[in-house]
């Protein structure tokens, strides 16, 4: 995804350049030929990339990611790499400028598409919270379920990576038994039989099961529908055998909790070849699982019944209400640690034997608490970077970007590039050793910094490491748990003044903070991309870019936290779905 390092320059140059018919063919191709074809033209495919077959701007649409990356790398002096001839400034500016226009045009051609979120199994957290709100039992049974992996936007509520397997189903059956046994029977039995003949019991069971299924499945259930009839057939048998009413109904409630209508977030399809707004009950669940990681409450279901949950004002009001509710903490608890990476402190990061603070919840929760406060005040998310107590002031962040026993300028620098600057470097080549072998002899007593200089000297590594390592070195004054230090453990004084490509000098944490603030729009874009991915439960695609732009524009340059959340809930992919891919 791009950002506008050179934005002021771009505006200047754009003002003087007449719009070309195909700016790509006219301005970009020549720059590619002069600067890139040695490695990415003819039969050369360094990094698997060859530009020679791109001759017209129309070809960008199908390769948006490639060109986004190309633009960013050129803009940031990552390409051409240092061992190649330097691209002259005029070429660099022309390339970035015209590619920006070409990308803009390309994005306008991408048809609006809400995307498709596959049949979405409840994550462990969602299962726990739903049971809590459904039965009033805070037993957290899903803590014993196998851990959910994650994918898409990097969150464990990503629908595509939530699987069903026998081990999980067994545990869900067991959990259903246990939570029903713990719950007050009133939570699942709405009706008692009048009289003691089997027919009265069947009638009462019919009502109880319909009521419980309606709540558990989070949408109306037809009392004459096949789902209920299937359960009533079984109940009829129980009644004949004189199984006590409560025992029989409870057993069928177990079926309700093991059914896909409970375990998954089921959104019935509408027969349409085009995208369509999801039904109001689906909206109720989309809102509640985004903000509460749990089922909708009575008010949401009432609004769904009144068909009001596709109304902008109603959605906005509900988001405000739900965030004010104590259940709203689920959003901060789930989203923030996975976004900034502190979730990894649970199993990895600094050795708790040496740094016991990493085990403390208040240590790990710093980013969560900060975000909760921003939302409550509806303050700008830019405080994450500008405030002294922001991300760069949090020991948890320094811990999450360290090894077991030492800091890692590369990991930390990469974190800055990804989270703060929203400019993640591309992956390293697959079979590259960590550092080139020829340096074997010399490494013994060197400092980390001297060793990492090799990254920058090796042409395979320099493209990215020349940019990410310095960002980490600028923060080396923070030890693996964020305590200030003036010297490395080896004894050498820490030099926190670093140079980024393009002759940009950064001085310590203040320098990184200033750099991030210079590019605050990129930070905001990165934040919104992640929040949207979390909210919709899938990774973002090229068609989501305009959606993110829309959210950013709607909230304006202040990027107030609560406003952003509201805008995400109002966005197209949050409210629409499609059955088939939108035609290109």
């Amino acid at each position, binding site marked *: 995804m791009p950002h506008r390092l050179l934005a002021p320059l771009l505006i200047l140059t754009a003002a003087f350049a007449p719009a070309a018919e195909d700016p790509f063919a006219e301005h970009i191709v020549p720059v590619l030929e002069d600067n890139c074809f040695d490695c990415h033209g003819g039969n050369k495919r360094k990094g698997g990339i060859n530009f020679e077959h791109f001759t017209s701007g129309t070809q960008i649409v199908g390769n948006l990611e490639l060109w986004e990356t190309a633009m960013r790398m050129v803009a940031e002096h990552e390409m051409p790499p240092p061992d190649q001839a330097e691209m002259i400034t005029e070429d660099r500016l022309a390339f970035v400028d015209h590619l920006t226009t070409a990308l803009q045009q390309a994005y306008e051609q991408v048809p609006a598409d809400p995307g498709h979120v596959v049949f979405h199994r409840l994550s462990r957290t969602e299962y726990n919270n739903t049971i809590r709100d459904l039965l009033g039992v805070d037993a957290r049974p899903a803590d*014993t379920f196998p851990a959910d992996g994650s994918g*898409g936007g990097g969150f464990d509520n990503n629908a595509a990576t939530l699987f069903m*397997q026998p081990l999980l189903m067994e545990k869900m059956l067991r959990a259903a038994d246990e939570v029903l046994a713990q719950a007050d029977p009133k939570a699942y039995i709405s009706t008692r039989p009048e009289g003691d003949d089997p027919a009265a019991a069947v009638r009462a069971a019919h009502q109880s099961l319909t009521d419980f299924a309606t709540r558990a499945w989070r949408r109306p259930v037809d009392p004459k529908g096949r789902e209920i009839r299937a359960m009533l057939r079984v109940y009829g048998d129980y009644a004949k055998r004189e199984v006590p009413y409560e025992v029989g109904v409870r057993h069928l409630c177990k079926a309700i909790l093991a059914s896909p209508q409970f375990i998954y977030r089921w959104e019935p399809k509408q027969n349409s070849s085009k995208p369509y707004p999801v039904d109001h009950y689906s909206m109720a669940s989309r809102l509640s699982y985004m903000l509460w990681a749990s089922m909708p409450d009575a008010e949401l279901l009432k609004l769904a019944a009144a068909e009001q949950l596709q109304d902008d004002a109603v959605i906005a009001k509900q988001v405000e209400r739900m965030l004010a509710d104590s259940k709203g903490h689920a959003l901060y608890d789930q989203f923030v640690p996975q976004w900034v990476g502190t979730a990894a402190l649970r199993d990895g*990061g600094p050795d708790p034997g040496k740094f016991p603070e990493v085990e403390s919840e208040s240590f790990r929760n710093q980013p969560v608490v900060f975000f909760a406060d921003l939302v409550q005040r509806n303050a700008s998310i830019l405080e994450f970077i500008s405030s002294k107590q922001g991300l760069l002031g949090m020991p948890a962040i320094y811990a999450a970007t360290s090894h077991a*026993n030492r800091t890692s300028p590369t990991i930390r620098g990469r974190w800055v590039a990804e989270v703060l600057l929203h400019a993640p470097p591309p992956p390293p080549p697959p079979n590259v050793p960590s550092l080139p072998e020829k340096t074997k002899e010399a490494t013994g007593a060197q400092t980390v910094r001297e060793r990492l200089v090799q990254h920058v000297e090796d042409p395979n590594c320099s493209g990215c490491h020349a940019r990410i390592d310095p960002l980490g070195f600028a923060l080396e004054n923070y030890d693996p748990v964020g305590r200030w230090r003036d010297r490395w453990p080896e004894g050498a004084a820490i030099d926190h003044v670093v140079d980024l490509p393009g002759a940009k000098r950064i001085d310590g944490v203040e320098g990184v903070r200033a750099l991030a603030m210079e590019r605050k729009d990129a930070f905001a874009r990165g934040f919104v991309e992640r929040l949207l991915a979390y909210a919709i439960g899938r990774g973002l695609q090229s068609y989501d870019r305009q959606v993110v732009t829309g959210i950013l524009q709607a909230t304006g340059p202040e990027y107030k936290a609560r406003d952003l959340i509201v805008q995400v809930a109002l966005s197209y992919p949050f409210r629409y779905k499609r059955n088939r891919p939108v035609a290109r």
Partner: protein
Amino acid sequence: MTDPRMSRRAVLRGAVGGLSIGLALPFMPSWAARLGAEEPGAGAPPPIRFAGFYQANGVPPDHWNLGYGEGPITELSQNLKSLAAIKDDVVVLRGFWHRETRGGDGHYFKESPWLTGTGITKTTGADLNSGGVSLDQILAQQVGFQTRLPSIELSCERVSSGVDTNVGVTRVYGGHISWSTPSTPVPRETDPYQAFQRLFEITPVRTGAKGITQLDEVNLIDVVSQHGRMVKNEVATDDKRKVDEYLDTVRDIEQRLKGEIQRAAKPRVMTPGQKAAIEQLKKDAQSYAGAYVRGDHTDLVTVMMDIMAMAFWTDNTRVGTLMYGNAVSGRNFSFLDGVNSSHHETSHHDESEGLKSQYSKIATWHADRFTQFVERLKGLPEGEGTTLLDHTIVLQGSGLGDGNRHSNRDLPLLLAGGKAAGIKGGRQVVSKGDDEPMCNVLKEVGERAGAQLKDFGDASGGLDRLGA
């Protein structure tokens, strides 16, 4: 590449051909909810089991490898010293590789397909595809119906969350070596007490209350399955695959419930030795209930391995995998003398002595665990003058050779046991040239463990050299 959308059931049908599930009799009725009444080993010869132990992040080859000679093991390497205790039972495999795991990235592409030998799809999750069904799951699908659980999957490290944005790949890959279909990773149990209960105590046939019978539980599953079929009619085409995953799972549970009811009718008695061992294991496992070990997990591994040994010994399953850690495991090993760093971190030692010696100690620790398991199996009598080890093929290794270089060549592989399956230990077997696929090893092991395999991954054949 198998169609990732193929359902587990379809894969199973393809794999077993004409075999129908639930008809063949195990060599003895499995010990189920109660302690039954039959001498283990009576009747048919004991079955062959398969255990796969995965170690992440490769090894330091110059400390691990024995040299290139084929034949009897004469001298042990720095990492493999502990093998001295089990030398006659071990085959050290040398020089094999997974061709299809080249490219992609340094870890996930190489580690996740350890038991499939395939190329994985690069994805943050949307089109997860391992490229194949793993050897253990093929065995589970072909021989697993004979036991209480078709297979068990254990791990000492929780699945890491998130997408590894360094390489744009979901960490789901790194947490799984068992794949029941190319698009379905099999979840692993990380809590030993949960694993114990699943094997030895809790059956999915729980009668909730008096008046509810075991058969009612089967009927309940049938209701749930009807609900699933109704949902399937009302979701978009892309979702049907997920509903099928659910329906496959439900069907699996239903089969197991029925098997359980059959077995309960003919319970099996444990020997006093087995009873005592299970009781001890229960205590050991219980001490970990609900806890997650971040530091020294040597004892945890022991308990996990014991769970597998006991599951085999009581014939509750014949197939198991254990992951010591996930791909790119950042597990902190500072509980070992002379180590103060994490596993992945030390693997990229760049020949710096400080880090490399730590990496080497971690490799030794993994080899020691293998030895420990093999010795444990050797101590469990089964059959006429034989032990459980004779009827178990244990394979341990990594999808990375030299971890420092992210190499997928010359993979570290240790094999033990399986005498009853014709495997001859006490030697090193070396690949033919440096191009012989590890899939040859897997195919040979799978067939000796009872699978029928037409082909497997990129296998060019079997490896009959494993035999005498």
